[in-house]
């Protein structure tokens, strides 16, 4: 089966290569860098931002997640983020980017014109001052992190081959269309839904997909009875810090320019992260008696998630409100999970699903600049539009992910055996041990 599955990858590659190998360089050959419309300053910032978003996934997210699992599963958990980047990069080049951003087809998906990045070269991307190739790779990083985020829900029990197959299908069938809806000229964008840097596209989608994963895969063996404490919290805090660091590229980079909008988004990102951490710590301190480091890290990420859709549309004080809300609501989200008892191992739903939903709605409340206006600034309609975006995303992603999981389960099987789970995924999936 893994053999079959490998063939799948190679097959994709081969086809891609022969069908496209010829065209692309041709396109690139007409390279004319520095055409007047390109701004070196804006390009420098988006190049930097793209690198920053990669750092969010590896090592950022890989460590954030890796530190929270048990030591017998840390490598497999890190591997999920790593392989997500690798698989998505290839898919994005061959068809993902085209499905997301090529000329619109019926408002729901992009065309096939840009398969294999045909025509995606150094010329400025429409309505912007940066090369098309730079915009494409910036977006590639977003697709990669979204898939990587989901892995937190199925950590410590998913089969490696299943995750790889899942990643390919999910980025193709869920992420690319959804991304098109919001940013690629699709119906949600047309409707006027505001999503500055991916509250719906990245966070709600990964969170809801994670919920579906947790429900379909079921609980980890020993969940609720055995000690599943994080095995290495310093790794987790380092991961959270790198997420914060990279998030400046994620949010401020989404301005696609180094200007006042980017500056405002940068500030909003910083203060929302801080507010999220303080809010989470405050709630913990009040209800548990002690503030925790994991709480600070989780709260900061919650604040960052919440501000993502609003970053370029709000001022610093609004950003603080949104960050505080992120910290509080995500704490409740995690609390709820513990009550409801499904095993979203690393709380992807609790933090990205809830935080993203709050952020998307909050954008409808606080938006006041950069082309967005929310309820508090005289535009009640926006909240409704945001709500529609949230609802549509929840439904589409949950249903679609559920289907994909069933397919993957059929093809390669989703879960490792009980014995393998007890022994740990590092040894059983990868023949490796993290620490000697």
């Amino acid at each position, binding site marked *: 089966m893994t053999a079959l599955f490998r063939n799948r990858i190679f097959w994709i590659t081969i086809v891609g290569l022969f069908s496209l190998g010829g065209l692309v360089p041709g396109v690139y050959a007409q390279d004319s860098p520095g055409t007047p419309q390109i701004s070196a300053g804006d390009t420098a910032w988006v190049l930097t931002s793209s690198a920053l978003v990669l750092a969010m996934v590896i090592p950022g997210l890989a460590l954030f997640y890796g530190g929270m699992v048990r030591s017998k599963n840390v490598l497999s958990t890190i591997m999920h983020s790593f392989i997500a980047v690798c698989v998505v990069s290839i898919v994005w080049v061959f068809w993902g980017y085209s499905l997301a951003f090529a000329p619109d087809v019926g408002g729901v998906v992009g065309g096939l014109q840009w398969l294999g990045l045909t025509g995606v070269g150094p010329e400025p991307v429409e309505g912007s001052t940066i090369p098309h190739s730079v915009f494409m790779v910036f977006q590639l990083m977003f697709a990669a992190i979204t898939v990587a985020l989901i892995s937190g829900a199925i950590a410590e029990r998913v089969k490696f081959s299943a995750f790889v197959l899942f990643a390919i299908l999910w980025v193709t069938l869920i992420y690319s269309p959804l991304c098109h809806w919001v940013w690629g000229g699709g119906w949600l964008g047309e409707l006027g839904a505001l999503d500055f840097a991916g509250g719906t596209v990245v966070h709600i989608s990964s969170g809801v997909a994670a919920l579906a994963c947790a429900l379909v895969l079921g609980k980890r063996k020993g969940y609720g009875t*055995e000690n599943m404490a994080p095995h290495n919290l310093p790794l987790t805090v380092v991961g959270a810090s790198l997420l914060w660091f990279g998030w400046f590229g994620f949010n401020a980079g989404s301005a696609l320019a180094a200007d006042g909008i980017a500056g405002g988004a940068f500030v909003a990102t910083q203060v929302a992260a801080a507010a999220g951490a303080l809010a989470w710590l405050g709630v913990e301190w009040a209800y548990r008696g002690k503030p925790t480091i994991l709480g600070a890290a989780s709260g900061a990420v919650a604040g960052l998630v919440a501000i993502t859709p609003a970053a370029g549309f709000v001022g610093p004080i609004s950003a603080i409100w949104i960050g505080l809300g992120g910290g509080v609501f995500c704490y409740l989200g995690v609390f709820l999970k513990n009550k409801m008892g499904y095993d979203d191992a690393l709380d992807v739903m609790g933090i990205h699903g809830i935080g993203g939903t709050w952020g998307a709605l909050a954008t409808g409340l606080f938006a006041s600049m950069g082309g967005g206006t929310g309820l508090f600034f005289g535009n009640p309609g926006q909240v409704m539009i945001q709500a529609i975006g949230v609802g549509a995303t929840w439904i589409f992603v949950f249903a679609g992910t559920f289907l994909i999981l069933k397919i993957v389960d059929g093809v390669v099987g989703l879960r490792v055996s009980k014995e393998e789970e*007890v*022994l740990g995924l590092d*040894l059983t999936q990868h*023949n*490796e*041990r993290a620490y000697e």
Partner: protein
Amino acid sequence: MKLIQAIIKPFKLDEVKEALVELGIQGMTVTEVKGFGRQKGHKETYRGTEYQIEFVPKIKLEIVVPDSRVADALEGITRAAKTGSIGDGKIFVSELQSVIRIRTGESGEGAV
């Protein structure tokens, strides 16, 4: 007084502890050890180099009990630690000459 040493599978620790507590045995000392025996270990691969790891992670329990409680203790440990598969472990029993509780200095059965 007797010293009971039990080598068990790590994930059985909690069950064994519970079993002993139910028997009214209130203390024990636990050590992480590696075992070599019939149960074979696992294989690791790093850049194509394979290593056969022959030592298996185990937990060693040391429990001091009055002679009167030895039989129950052995029975309880065996029941709780047993999976029926190779590698379940061993129990060794030996005689102690004296036992002292540092805090109080008291010795003998009163010390445990």
